């Protein structure tokens, strides 16, 4: 038996000998399932590339993204400037490379803020029901009653334009759907016999929610959040486009598109490059989300 074979055998064992082997086997199966979906792997690769680019931005970008050079403005694509230069002579390629940090910053922060808030509110609301549920769901509904972008706009108007405020605004508008999903899942799970069983073991609500309900909500939330990432990128870009998100001179892709709009007729690369970057990354998240859904959330389609 070759060693690969042996590993596979170990991973797929019907009678794992340790919790580690059991978890590894499970992960292996999930991974194998995921790897079969070529588009999803493609999406994952793009996102991995994005993270690497963001991490190594100083080494990848040939120029400082903020240094202007009026002499060199509006240069078309060339070996010196792969994606050309913008209206004040900055290297667009470098700006897009550095802009990946902002994109990651936005989606990372939104995920860190919105997901826990959503899952906690949703599970607590769903598990306890009654008055707690009513109050929490009312609050959620109030936030859901606003169209997302418009609420974000109103918040940005209040807080002032800027990428931090855009993040806060997007996060504020992103959590309610997560809370709804988590609540829905919790209600189904709550009535399951295995929750009754753990209650009969004497477990308290905190243990039940964190140890038994949340892990089951998380997979569908991960899927949803991954799919939402695309939307968040688009919203952030939209805010930037309207001049309400990241502010110049920061190399945010939406803001770059917005500036590029003024030069669209003669200098197409100003708008095309950042626009394509937005598209590629949000497509990657969509592909990854679809793939994850197939692995983690077998109930839904596919």
């Amino acid at each position, binding site marked *: 038996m070759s060693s690969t074979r042996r590993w596979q055998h170990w991973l797929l064992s019907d009678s794992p*000998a340790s919790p580690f082997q059991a978890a590894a086997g499970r992960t292996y199966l999930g991974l194998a399932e995921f790897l079969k979906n070529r588009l999803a792997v493609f999406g994952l690769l793009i996102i991995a590339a994005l993270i690497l680019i963001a991490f190594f931005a100083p080494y990848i970008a040939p120029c400082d993204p903020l240094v202007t050079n009026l002499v060199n403005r509006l240069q078309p694509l060339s070996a010196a400037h792969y994606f050309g230069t913008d209206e004040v002579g900055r290297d667009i390629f470098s700006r897009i490379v550095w802009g990946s940090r902002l994109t990651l910053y936005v989606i990372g922060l939104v995920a860190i803020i919105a997901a826990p808030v959503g899952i906690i509110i949703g599970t607590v609301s769903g598990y306890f029901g009654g008055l707690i549920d009513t109050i929490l769901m009312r609050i959620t509904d109030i936030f859901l009653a606003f169209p997302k972008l418009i609420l974000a706009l109103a918040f940005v108007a209040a807080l002032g334009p800027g990428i931090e405020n855009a993040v806060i605004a997007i996060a504020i508008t992103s959590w309610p759907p997560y809370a709804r999903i988590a609540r829905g899942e919790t209600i189904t799970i709550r009535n399951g*016999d295995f929750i009754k*069983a753990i209650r*009969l073991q004497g477990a308290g609500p905190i243990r039940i929610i964190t140890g038994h309900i949340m892990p089951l909500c998380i997979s569908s939330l991960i899927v949803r959040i991954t799919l939402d990432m695309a939307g968040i990128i688009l919203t952030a870009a939209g805010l930037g486009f309207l001049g309400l998100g990241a502010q110049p001179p920061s190399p945010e892709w939406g803001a770059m598109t917005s500036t590029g709009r003024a030069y669209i007729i003669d200098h197409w690369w100003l708008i095309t490059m950042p626009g394509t970057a937005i598209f590629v990354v949000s497509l990657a998240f969509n592909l990854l989300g679809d793939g994850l859904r197939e692995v983690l959330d077998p109930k839904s389609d596919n």
Partner: protein
Amino acid sequence: MLQVDNLHVIFGHGLDLNHAVKNVSFTVGQGESFGLVGESGSGKSTVLNCIAGLINTWQGEIEIDGERLSHRRPKSFYRKVQMVFQDPYGSLHPRHTVDRTLKESVNIHHLGDANLRVVKVLGEVGLGPQFRFRYPHQLSGGQRQRVAIARALILEPEILLLDEPTSALDVSIQAEILNLLQDISKKRNLTSILVSHDLAVVSHMCDNILVMSQGATVEALSCDQLRSGDIKQRYTRQLLVASKGYDRAAIDQFQDY
């Protein structure tokens, strides 16, 4: 050991009001195996859930060892009373291994020696160590039900509540589980309450039987009374006839209750 007096359960209010259990009383002695029989909607499982503390809307009295139970149960209660559910597919956490499911109980009650206890109880329900780290989806229905029984036993309870423990299983597996339950009850001297719609299962397992219909008690019988056909109520008799298989002539005599 266990006494239920004038138990009433009402769900909902206004238009959706549902009087699920009406004035049910019974006593179960130490080491006794007690059966609750009835068709769906008879309230038999509701009674069991009240005893287990899964339902809070009951009125009446439930006593264990002469101690009255309130709606809120202390942690110590769960070491005394445990339950096995009907659906072996739904009663195990899908993301937890057998090991984790069993250890969880030990951890909640800070009993210590978790590994030892797990191995021991698994052996007791007839599952070898190779099952210890499997996930529920790697188990058959019968094996799952054994895990569920192991989970109930690991806290060494005195009273075991069984809610249709075999109705989702094939008959051949049912026999194995029933045998297992019988063995364990005898070995541990457990008091048990078995809820079932199957007269044959109840009569096989129980000493005394309470027949329920639409939330109310129909009659209380001993197992011997049932076997000998010493039955007072028409309803019970009809159940008995029905459990014997298809008989075209007898069916015309059936009444709706």
